[in-house]
Each structure stands twice: as structure tokens, then as C-alpha cells.
């Protein structure tokens, strides 16, 4: 038996198998594998697992096709499809994350709009109080002045009546010259007193107007650098903590002195009224530290205002630490608002 043809045929078959086994994967399959591995190691696996799973199944089909048929049209087509499906899964993962971002922003908008509405309502109430207070003050001042004016007019009328009676009596010969002189002297004295009272009233009115103007000017200047809230009970001047103090310290910034001078001007125009300086902090850091810092800051401001002429028995200092926030401590804007010093003027006179 001639075995040579058999050996040649066997060799050819083995070579063919060898060629198939050693065939290089097509570029599409290499790219598909790489794309899948990157996506599986990243956020796509978290946010688009189902889509990535579909891509994985397609990749497995491509690998099987390559194992069975080598670099065939089917292998390349399946590899191409795998890569597209991986890309689509990554894009879908991005879209999912964007949807989460949108939900977070919508929540923030809702919370912020609630806070803004509350702030607007508070400001409206404060403005209404200020207006009511101004009206009451104007009415009481006008009423008082009218009362004094009426009293003076009554006195003038009374004097005029007395003079008329005297003159009539003189004409009727009922009084002697001496008596007449005496009566006239008394009337003149009363007239002088009346004139003096009129002058005093005018001077008082003028002084009051000037004081009101000075106070209004001082408040206007102050409103450019501080927040002012006025109610029937009190006026609150709020200065930002970072405007007055360095972070974590209770010593005044040099630039803060000018602002506190303006505050002192307002306080000196509000003579006799009780004043309280209150220090506040945000909630970052230890509670004990924040409490002490707020007390030290309040005392620093009190000391400075006394140096500027405010009577020491009118003004007290208090630290409230982090316990009276006016905004949320969850964001930087809110924490900045909470770090503040309030100077509270009681609107009832302490004379």
C-alpha cells in the first residue's frame, strides 16, 4: 500500500487546521473587545447594565463566530454591532446621570424658592411694620404739636379777652390809672411768657426735625453697608461676620471700624434707647468654640461702640453661637448669612 498520498493529504489537513487556529482576529473584533472591556470597567456597567449585557451577548456571538469561521463576514458584522451597542450603552449611561442631575437641580430649585418666598414674606412684613411705625410717629408728633398750638391759641385768646375787658373797664372809668397799669403789666408779663413758650416750641420743633433728619441720614448711610430691619418693638442692624472679623477671630478688621463708626452715629441719634449686641456663627466646627467666638465678637463690638461714645450702661453683649441661624447651614451661601453680628435697638425709650 502506498502511504505517501495519505501522508501528504493528512499534512495538508493539519496545516489547514493550524492556519485556522492561528488566524488573527479581525480589527472589528479587537475594537469590540476593547470597547466592551472599557465600558464594563466604567460607569456604563452601573448606569446601563441591561444595554451593556446585550452588547456582551453580541460579543459572545462574535467570538463564537470567530472560533467557528475565523475572519468571516459574519464575525466582522457581529463585532461591528457589538461596538455600536457598547457605544449606545455608554451614551444611555450618560443620559441616566443627566436625569439624576436634573432631579437634583429641581429639588434645589424647590427648596430655594420656598426659602425665597419666606424671605420675601418676612421683608414685606418688616416693610409694613416700618410704614405703620412711621405713620404712627408722624400722627403722634402732629397731634402733640397741634395740642401745644391749641393751648397757646387758647392763652392768646384769654389774654386778648382780658385786654379787651380792661380797656372796656378803663373806658367805663371803673379802674384807676394805677390799677390799670398793674393789670397791663400782668397782661404784658403773660404775653411775654406766651411769646417765650412759642419760641421754645418752635425751637423744639426745629430741633426735633433736625434730629429726625440726622437720624434718617445716618440710617441711609448705614443701609448701604448693613441690613436694617425695623419693627414697632426694635430695630435690628445686621453686619456680616466676614465684613467685621477675620475667619475664626474676634479682633476687628481695620476696615470694619469705619462701618462701626456709622453704626455708632445711628446709636448716638437714638438717645436713651437700650442696645444689645448679639454675635452669631454658622454650625461648622465645635459648638463650644462657636459659642465662645460669638461671645468674644459681641464683646469686641460693644467695647468699640462704647469707645465711640455710646453710654456703657445702655449697651449689653450676648453670644448665641450657632443656635439662631437665619439660613441653612448646608450650603456656603447660607453659612455666610449665619455668620453675623446683630445690633438691636429697643424702640421703647430707656430714659
Amino acid at each position, binding site marked *: 500500500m502506498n502511504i505517501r498520498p495519505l501522508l501528504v493529504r493528512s499534512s495538508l489537513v493539519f496545516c489547514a487546521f493550524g492556519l485556522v487556529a492561528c488566524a488573527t482576529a479581525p480589527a472589528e473584533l479587537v475594537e469590540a473587545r476593547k470597547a466592551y472591556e472599557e465600558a464594563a470597567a466604567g460607569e456604563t456597567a452601573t448606569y446601563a447594565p441591561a444595554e451593556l449585557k446585550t452588547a456582551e451577548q453580541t460579543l459572545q456571538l462574535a467570538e463564537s463566530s470567530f472560533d467557528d469561521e475565523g475572519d468571516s463576514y459574519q464575525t466582522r458584522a457581529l463585532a461591528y*454591532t457589538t461596538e455600536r451597542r457598547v457605544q449606545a450603552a455608554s451614551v444611555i449611561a450618560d443620559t441616566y446621570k443627566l436625569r439624576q442631575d436634573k432631579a437634583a437641580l429641581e429639588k434645589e430649585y424647590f427648596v430655594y424658592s420656598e426659602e425665597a418666598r419666606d424671605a420675601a414674606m418676612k421683608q414685606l412684613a418688616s416693610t409694613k411694620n416700618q410704614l405703620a411705625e412711621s405713620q404712627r410717629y408722624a400722627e403722634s408728633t402732629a397731634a402733640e404739636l397741634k395740642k401745644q398750638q391749641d393751648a397757646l391759641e387758647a392763652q392768646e385768646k384769654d389774654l386778648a379777652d382780658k385786654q379787651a375787658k380792661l380797656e372796656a373797664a378803663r373806658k367805663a372809668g371803673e379802674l384807676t390809672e394805677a390799677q390799670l397799669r398793674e393789670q397791663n403789666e400782668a397782661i404784658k408779663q403773660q404775653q411775654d411768657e406766651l411769646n417765650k413758650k412759642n419760641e421754645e416750641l418752635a425751637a423744639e420743633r426745629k430741633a426735633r426735625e433736625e434730629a429726625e433728619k440726622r437720624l434718617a441720614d445716618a440710617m441711609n448711610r448705614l443701609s448701604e453697608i448693613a441690613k436694617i430691619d425695623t419693627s414697632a418693638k426694635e430695630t435690628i442692624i445686621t453686619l456680616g461676620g466676614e465684613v467685621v472679623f477675620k475667619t475664626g477671630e474676634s479682633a476687628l478688621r481695620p476696615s470694619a471700624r469705619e462701618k462701626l463708626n456709622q453704626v455708632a452715629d445711628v446709636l448716638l441719634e437714638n438717645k436713651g434707647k437700650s442696645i444689645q449686641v448679639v454675635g452669631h456663627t454658622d454650625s461648622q466646627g465645635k459648638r463650644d468654640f462657636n459659642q465662645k467666638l460669638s461671645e468674644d465678637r459681641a464683646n469686641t463690638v460693644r467695647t468699640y461702640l462704647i469707645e465711640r461714645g455710646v453710654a456703657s450702661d445702655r449697651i449689653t453683649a450676648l453670644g448665641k453661637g450657632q443656635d439662631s441661624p437665619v439660613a441653612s447651614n448646608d450650603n456656603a451661601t447660607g453659612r455666610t448669612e449665619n455668620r453675623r453680628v446683630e445690633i438691636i435697638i429697643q424702640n421703647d425709650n430707656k430714659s
Partner: protein
Amino acid sequence: MKDYSCKTLILLCLLAMGGSVFTGCASVTIPSDQYGQPRETIRVVTEMGTDNNPQAKLHLKLANDELENADKLIKQEKKEEAKLSLTRAEADAALALALLKRDEMKSEVDAVQEKLDRLKKQTQELGGNS
């Protein structure tokens, strides 16, 4: 007897092979959803418009090209290859659609951010006027 049995056997084998060939040809059908799905996705992408997204535009074109190729292959009775072309067409169309939907979501996020920024600005102005 022996020759007759061998010939009959050979004939039966040939018939079986031929039958399987015919059966094989007749069994390669393209499911209607595999045929229709890429067309539907392409329609949706075209309606949404790809002018603002060059990448989506490219994949839409690739999908249309593959669809055209699939139709040619079907006419040539190369249905296995046609099925592969349809699969590629659907993958490209689906990617184009995903890109456009991502753009839509980005626009929605930007709109909410703008609304929030506007509200914050208005609130600050109101606070400054107090």
C-alpha cells in the same frame, strides 16, 4: 442485490442532502420585526432631526446604507448576510437615537439650571434692596 442496495443508499443520501439544501434555503427567513425595527428607529431619528449632532447624523447615514445593502442582499437571496446587515443597521440607528436623547436631556438640565440661577439672582437683588 448488493449493488442495488448500494445504489439505492447513495440515491437516498443524495436526496436527503438535496432536500436539506432546499429545506435550508427555504428556512432562512427574515423575521418581520428584524426587518421593520431598523426602519422604525431610522424614522424616529429622522423626525427628531440630526442637524445639531454630527455624530448622530453619521450613524443615521450608516444605518440607511446598511438598510439599502440588506435590501440588495435579499434580492440576491443572500438572506443570512441580509440579516447581518439589518442587525448593523439597527445598531447604528439605535446609537443615533441614544445620542439625540442625550442632547435632549442636556437641554433640560441647562433649562433647570438657568431657572435656578435666575431665582437666586432675583432673591439676592431683593435682599440688597431691603
